[in-house]
């Protein structure tokens, strides 16, 4: 049996010194998708940031592909994290933003910025300054990283925010294709979405 892509063992997490997640454990294997749900403040974003290696749990262990995650050495070749913020420099065009990433990232991208932006329907706006794009267009540029880099684990925080119906459908197809390629997805969303695979739902309680 293959190793799980992600193993979370008894993690506790704090935000601004308040405990938001207590003793959470789960694992994600190839082809699986996990949806984190719960009301505002239940710690969905905090969990995703911990899984990405951006914050360290107070207790417990997060391992990707059997390797413990630390915030000093993000294993960029095993994860792509799409957070709340789009992560784009407003005074650069979408293509310039992606080209910069493709030049500095390790490992190198599997597709170039032009083709990825074309796939996402942003061919005509790839040279426009990001500051002039709509919220939905910025979100699509942010999602371009999913197609540009090859990583088995996708961590998606409210990925459907600001997307129109066709873009939402395209993201659902991208998730399906990723799961077919034996990838795994952990996402936090309040929206309903369609997925070919069965979605495992984790409902997070609010810790008072």
């Amino acid at each position: 049996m293959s190793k799980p892509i992600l193993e979370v063992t008894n993690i506790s997490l704090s935000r601004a010194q308040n405990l938001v997640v207590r003793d959470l454990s789960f694992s994600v294997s190839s082809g699986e998708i996990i949806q984190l749900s719960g009301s505002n403040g239940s710690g969905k974003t905090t969990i995703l940031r911990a899984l990405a290696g951006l914050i360290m749990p107070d207790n417990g262990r997060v391992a990707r592909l059997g390797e413990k995650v630390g915030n000093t050495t993000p294993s960029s070749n095993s994860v792509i994290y799409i957070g709340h913020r789009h992560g784009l420099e407003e005074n650069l065009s979408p293509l310039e933003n992606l080209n910069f990433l493709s030049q500095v990232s390790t490992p190198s991208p599997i597709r170039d910025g032009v083709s990825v932006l074309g796939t996402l329907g942003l061919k005509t706006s790839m040279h426009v300054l990001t500051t002039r794009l709509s919220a939905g267009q910025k979100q699509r540029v942010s999602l371009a990283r999913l197609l540009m880099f090859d990583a088995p684990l996708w961590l998606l925080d409210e990925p459907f925010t600001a997307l129109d119906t066709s873009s939402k459908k395209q993201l659902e197809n991208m998730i399906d294709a990723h799961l077919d390629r034996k990838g795994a997805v952990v996402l936090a969303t309040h929206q309903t979405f369609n997925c070919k695979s069965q979605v495992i739902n984790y409902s997070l309680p609010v810790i008072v």
Partner: protein
Amino acid sequence: MTLFPRTVNETTSRELRKTFRNPSEIFYPLIFFVLVLTMFPFAIPPVPGLFNSIASGILWTAALLAISLSLETLFKADYRSGALEVIHLSGADLVLVGVGKSLGHWIISGLPIALLAFPIGWALDLNFLTLWVLVLTLMLGSATMSLTGASISALTVGLRGGGFLLVMLTLPFFVPLLIFGSSAATNASLGIVPEAELYFLGGMFVLSLTVAPWATAHAIRIRLG
């Protein structure tokens, strides 16, 4: 073949490109620098030779403050937009990103201020040797400020009152540069070769180039956590 590693080149050109599209970031420090220098003569008594003897010190002080003020913006936009997070998770070498950011900051703030010091110093009646020493010390000193300041800017980005904290934390590092930089120019105006001061400034630059980018990388990781 390029002079710097690819990550440094790409980071620097990204910094320059985004700043030239929002040029107020370049002009504010320069305007501040010029304004301080044009206002100062009105505030001192009209004693012959007084201004000439303190001009290099005033030029250095104005340059130091202008560069300190410009440091706050170095990581601010990237932190707020989440771009810093994306860069970190992309597996980019943060040490080289720190060097690229510092180099971009120096080209945008330190270099123009050092070059602008030449015509301003000439207008303030500084002699030719003093002007050259002033420009050289400002170039070395501002490069050191960009490298050291980048690490403190990364450490204070996103904090409430971070701008004030940044100035308070950078000044102790910058004061020795001010002392040796202005002293070099003053000695040059007296006809003394400022060898010791130039060695000190060169040494400080090499030390900051060796240490500061690692501190910047670590500070980015701390702030993102």
